[in-house]
């Protein structure tokens, strides 16, 4: 028997075992699948443009992983950052951030003094029509806000304190990086040439010791407009 014949039979056996399983009645204890409105929105977005939805969902998964990494770095800072308090030399040689390029990654590496204060809560005031805030994840030194419209289209707005031991990475695929100014602050516009991919705008506010980033399917003008409308917000609203 050849490998191909064996695989053909294996395929048939596996399909038949799946059929047998599917014919078995549902357990009474199994809960019903009751779709949430978020799931409905996301599936609608998937049907409108499957590729764009895929890129966004991949981006979300990567973003969650990046947030976890950032939190791990912050834990390291809390553990070892005490050295800074007792070392005047270390305090004196503080440099706030460096930008490094590794292959397809732009890496913002912070070396600034640790800030134990709570991050202020910022929001985007000038959102495109139909977008509302749907999630705000607040972690030590990091806030990630999600805005969504009825089609499931998403804008991400993240910001973090520039602490020693933390970093922000932008992974480039087929992107062009352009230096820009956001309210007289240095920033970079990362423009993807892949249709449906997100563009990103990031900038550093040295006075606040915060790096901001907005990502979405918008051009530079659209992202700049949103970036320049960022303001402190009242979460009790």
């Amino acid at each position: 028997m050849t490998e191909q014949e064996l695989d053909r039979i294996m395929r048939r056996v596996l399909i038949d075992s799946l059929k047998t399983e599917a014919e078995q009645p549902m357990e009474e204890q199994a809960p019903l699948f009751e779709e949430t409105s978020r799931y409905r929105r996301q599936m609608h977005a998937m049907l409108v443009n499957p590729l764009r939805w895929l890129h966004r969902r991949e981006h979300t998964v990567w973003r969650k992983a990046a947030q976890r990494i950032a939190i791990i770095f912050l834990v390291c800072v809390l553990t070892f950052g005490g050295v800074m308090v007792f070392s005047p030399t270390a305090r004196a040689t503080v440099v706030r951030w460096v930008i490094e390029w590794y292959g397809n990654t732009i890496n913002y590496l912070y070396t600034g003094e640790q800030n134990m204060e709570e991050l202020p809560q910022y929001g985007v005031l000038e959102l495109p029509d139909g977008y509302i805030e749907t999630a705000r994840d607040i972690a030590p030194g990091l806030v990630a806000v999600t805005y969504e419209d009825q089609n499931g289209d998403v804008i991400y707005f993240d910001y973090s304190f520039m602490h020693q031991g933390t970093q922000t990475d932008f992974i480039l695929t087929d992107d062009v990086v352009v230096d820009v100014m956001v309210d007289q602050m240095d920033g970079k516009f990362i423009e993807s040439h892949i249709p449906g991919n997100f563009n990103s705008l990031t900038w550093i506010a040295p006075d606040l010791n915060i790096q901001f980033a907005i990502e979405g399917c918008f051009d530079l003008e659209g992202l700049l407009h949103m970036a320049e409308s960022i303001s402190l917000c009242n979460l009790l609203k």
Partner: protein
Amino acid sequence: MLSFFLAVLESDADRQMFAAIYDQHHSQMECVAIKILKNQSDAEDAVQNAFMQVIRHFEKIYQIPCENLPFWLISIVKNEAYMILRKNKKTVPLEDWSAFSKRAADVSDYDALVELFSELPDTYRQVLEMKVLLGYADEEISAHLGISKTAVSTRASRGRQLLKEILEKEGFQL
């Protein structure tokens, strides 16, 4: 790779086909996910992850006979659900292949063979389904299941060997 996706799913015909697949099969996929995970949020994640796989491998849709498509989709969503289950439990159950393979001696007809394969240890079945049914490369399976490429290859060859032995012993003509 990305440009390949674009070539495959950019046309209106492909999108219509994708929408038709969703309309016809999403309910069954959702039932399978909730049955395994018993948690709405995890089940939604499993179904969405399954559709991510469908989009990534959309070119394969055209090679699958229509009558097998529902089971191809069920296989994908089951694998995604078991992955979530495994992540949530943070442990990997022990799988005793030698005890399982001894049951091959009891197989006397095709139905018994199908029943035996429906009770394969989880990772063995996932590897065989992903490799033989879904056509994934070993690297993809390894990354997806979080096991080494050697473990993927071992599971695939053990499964094939077991099937070969049963076929030779019983002389099935399939």
